């Protein structure tokens, strides 16, 4: 087969003469083809790099972004405050005096509830507090306010009205509690955590 092919080619070339023969075997014929191959190779490599770069970017954008745990942190803060204010279904001792919020409890709220708003000394967090807590004490039946506790950076509260990744995480919870005299109360706890720099990129 191979012999026959060679023979056919040889015959063809012989008949066509020297001019056509030289045309096929001319140096330029091969150089031209090789150039095309090189261009295709460069194209393929560039496509390969584009795809690889896109994959790297996608992976980096997903895994490089930190987990936003501020909502969980705010929830933990709310749970801690609720545990502090209640004891076995009744309101904790010393929270209410004469049907109103105790001034002593209000003043020493952080110590009473074992809460501190300390943060890492990064991004200037030491200068501006990253937490805010607001507690509203109401009569359950009449909704009359019996007292209020505000702790932390009050500027963060405005961020709760905004939507977006960079706004602080806010948790607003109500709960029902009674005292030993069967007086019914509603307590509203608003917990706000900022810490945007570490949780959002």
């Amino acid at each position, binding site marked *: 087969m191979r012999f026959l092919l060679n023979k056919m080619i040889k015959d063809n070339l012989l008949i*066509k003469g020297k001019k056509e023969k030289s045309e096929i075997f001319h140096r330029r014929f091969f150089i031209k083809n090789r150039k095309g191959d090189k261009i295709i190779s460069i194209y393929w490599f560039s496509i390969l790099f584009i795809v690889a770069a896109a994959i790297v970017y996608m992976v980096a954008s997903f895994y490089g972004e930190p987990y936003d745990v501020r909502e969980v942190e705010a929830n933990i803060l709310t749970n801690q405050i609720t545990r502090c204010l209640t004891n076995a279904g009744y309101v904790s001792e010393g929270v209410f005096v004469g049907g109103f919020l105790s001034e002593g409890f209000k003043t020493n709220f952080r110590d009473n509830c074992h809460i501190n708003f300390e943060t890492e000394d990064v991004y200037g967090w030491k200068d501006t507090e990253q937490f805010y807590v607001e507690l509203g004490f109401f009569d359950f039946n009449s909704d009359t306010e019996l007292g209020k506790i505000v702790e932390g950076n009050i500027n963060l509260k405005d961020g709760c009205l905004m939507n977006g990744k960079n706004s602080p995480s806010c948790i607003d919870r109500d709960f029902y509690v009674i005292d030993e005299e069967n007086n019914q109360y509603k307590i509203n706890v608003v917990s706000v955590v900022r810490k945007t720099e570490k949780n959002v990129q």
Partner: protein
Amino acid sequence: MFNRMGFSFYKRVSFVKETMMVENSKGLHCKRKSKFVLSQITKKAQVGNTATWMVATVAIVIILLFSIFLSTSYFSDQKRVASDNQFNQPAVSSFFSYALTENSQGERVYDKIKQEEDLNEFNGNLALDIFYEFYSDLYNGVWLGVNFEGFGVRKNDYFGTRPTTIRGGDVNKKNVPHLSEELNLTSTKFLELALAPK
């Protein structure tokens, strides 16, 4: 000679075929296609190939950009750890306080439910005022009532039928509300607060 010049076997075959095609179509003996016709065909093929790859490149770039947009916009939200699945201490505290609440006759809600094995007007409405008012925005379903072991419908006049979410496969199918706090009434019956997730 062909091999020495780097001419592949495949190219040799195609060259022969090409020559033979010209011979058959024009009825000429051993006459090869002219240089002009060959170059025209080659150029057309090259233009076709180039156009294909240009379109392919645009398609590849569009697909990549779309993937990047998708991964940055949609999947980045997946990094937010929501508090929906977290323990809800305010709801639990409310539940215990509710059970300890006394009616005008000085009877505790817990004792009354234990006695009647259902909600009555006082404790049913109080439960609605507390749990439905406070937690219906957070949860898809809020239910409080008497639950029991075994099969049967858990239903009352105030909260309707107990909400459930199905977890597990076909074999291990289980009905579990997200948050469930219980107080035993008897050995088989209990007062339950069930909060189903959104």
